[in-house]
């Protein structure tokens, strides 16, 4: 019953926007062939302009945010590290996205972030606190009571997790990581970024029980409408905290498929996507498509 509904829905929306269809595809569906995915790669130096160009390619902001929606953005602002060091999502990107959500008439814009360093210094050093001044975006570190325990029905190891309520209750969830080296998980990309949301005890449990599988498990549950990976500069080693050696691809990676976005981003580090445990597992669990051969990469200049 459910499947039929989905198929008919796919048919009707296919003519409208292929991308929109992808985003509503229930991702655990094992019986269907792996969905082909589209990744938009924007090259440039002006971050707000790059974001605007990328979003235009995906059908414009109205495809994601409508007036009155609650928007939650998950940047990576975990470390006491400066924007040019590449440890955190670039403040210009966070600001541009919040301003766009404001322009769309979002009712509430929250950016919950469970920082690794003390939040005050982290938000300040990362430049994100300053970037959000004068906007409606509320960057904060969730306290214990801001979390809610949720079940992860398709999780193989991670069966439940504490997730900030603002992320659970929003109408539009945007995942906005920075691409960088990670000592434990090889690379921090979009799926790994959710570890910056969940409660500390779950973070520790994931490491204990099998990091890559838990990241993939959680990805079966959390459904960002949009993934924007900041690859304007990427940290090649000493991650996730840095400071490490940097490279500057000057790219933003946009997709509605987190696995596809991660798969492309892995290539920036000269890695095969399936060499990253959680990309392979998430692909196998049907979260999205991590097979580069089936991903359509559209490059634009901005």
């Amino acid at each position: 019953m459910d499947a039929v509904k989905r198929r008919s829905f796919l048919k009707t929306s296919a003519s409208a926007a292929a991308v929109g269809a992808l985003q509503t595809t229930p991702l655990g569906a094992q019986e269907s062939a792996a969905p082909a995915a589209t990744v938009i790669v924007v090259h440039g130096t002006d971050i707000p302009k790059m974001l605007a160009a990328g979003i235009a390619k995906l059908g414009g902001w109205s495809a994601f945010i409508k007036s009155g929606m609650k928007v939650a953005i998950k940047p990576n602002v975990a470390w006491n590290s400066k924007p040019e060091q590449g440890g955190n999502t670039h403040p210009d990107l966070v600001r541009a996205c919040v301003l766009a959500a404001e322009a769309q008439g979002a009712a509430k814009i929250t950016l919950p972030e469970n920082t690794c360093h003390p939040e005050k210094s982290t938000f300040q050093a990362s430049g994100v606190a300053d970037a959000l001044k004068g906007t409606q975006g509320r960057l904060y570190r969730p306290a214990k009571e801001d979390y809610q325990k949720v079940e992860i029905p398709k999780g193989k190891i991670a069966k439940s997790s504490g997730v900030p309520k603002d992320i659970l209750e929003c109408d539009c969830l945007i995942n906005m990581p920075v691409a960088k080296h990670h000592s434990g998980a090889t690379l921090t990309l979009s799926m790994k970024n959710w570890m910056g949301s969940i409660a500390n005890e779950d973070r520790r449990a994931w490491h204990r029980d099998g990091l890559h599988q838990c990241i993939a498990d959680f990805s079966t549950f959390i459904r960002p409408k949009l993934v924007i990976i900041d690859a304007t500069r990427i940290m090649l080693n000493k991650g996730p905290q840095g400071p490490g050696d940097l490279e500057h691809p000057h790219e933003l990676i946009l997709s509605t498929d987190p696995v596809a976005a991660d798969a492309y981003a892995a290539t920036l580090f000269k890695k095969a996507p399936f060499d990253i445990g959680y990309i392979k597992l998430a692909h196998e669990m049907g979260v999205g498509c991590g097979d580069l051969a089936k991903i359509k990469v559209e490059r634009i200049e901005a």
Partner: protein
Amino acid sequence: MFTRRNLVRLILFALFALLALGVLPEAWRRWSVLLPGLSPLLSLGGALAARHAGLLAVLGLPLLLLPLFKGRFFCWRLCPMGFAAEMASRINRRHTGLIRRLPFVGKGLALLIIGSAAVGWPVLVWTDPLCIFNGFFAAWRTPLTWASAATAGGFVLILLASLLAPNIWCHRLCPLGGLQEWLTQLGNRLRAARGTTAAAATPDSTLAHAHAGRRLFLGFALGGVTGAIYRRFGLRAATAQARETPDGDHEQGRGRQRRHGARRPQPAPVRPPGAAGQAFNALCARCGNCMRACPYGLIMPDLGTSGIDGLFTPVLAFRSRNPQQEAFCFQDCTACTQVCPTGALRPLTVAQKQQTAIGLAHVCRKKCIAWEKHEYCVVCQEYCPYHAIIEVEQNGVMCPIVDAEKCRGCGACESQCPAEPIAITISGRAPQPVLAHPSPQLPD
């Protein structure tokens, strides 16, 4: 009772209590050093003992000079502890004469403190009233354990004693009062020598001066000897503890050595950054300023891990000692080093703090997820601000080893180690070495 004098004292009491409580905005908090610093026993005594006169020592000067001219003006007009003791004393009107037969213990105490400070190992500094007053308010900022309650105990004890034997504190026991009593006498003597007092050269007063001189000498000498004895035992304990502290990653050999029933030594306590080396227990007045200053609530009163003379001194309780704690000694923070009245903690800049190793991490491989269970982890490496965790590949995963030349003992690794029980823990270093390796985190 409600005189203008008491109103001023009440206002001062409230002001000092506010400072001591640490409820003021963060920019104001470092002024909590003001109250205990006013006591020359703490600030000047500390500088004398630590052989290190910082700007703080200046704080003690007013109370060293004031009694020369004004007697115990501070005690009767300004001191918040004295105000509280006096108010408590007023409740019991029946036993006001009780203390008459008691000698002024505080005068001896003051000499003992100064004498031992001259040797570098001061004793009984924690009897200072301003420090006791401060310690009482410290208790409300740390989680209520019996250790924190004990630091508050001094204040309560003084009030109780004042109830039972009115005025016993200010007139008989207080070392700061004792010091001022000495200085008052000195002032009188100086004035007498200049002939401003008529009764300058009666035989009685000459005899009294001779007595005073002998007592002064005896008091200082006793203090010096006590300090020297304390140093002897203190140094021995400190070296014994240093021998137990492993250097860096050590797992293989040591486990075997200790196999047969040998008691596992407790890891050395981690002191706040800037801590004086072996004489720390002697120098620390237990005023609680550092505990309140720490924005992360890491610093706790010690309960015996640093010996009996280290009771209630500040130690950093990372997650293995305090399961609720998920913070570590953050690399950009120097709050605790700025508020110590005695110089037991020296003020550090951020750059100095980042070069100072307060402790050393070590990995217990049997507990480590990567070493033992071959899981992807190295969270310790993730969190280490100093790149002090070396990764080695073993069974296809990266495993942590501590680089003793880079580890500052900040506890970032311990704060998030997912192993149960925690596989990477910090043991303290005393004296705290200044590392040659530059900090990758240094602000430019």
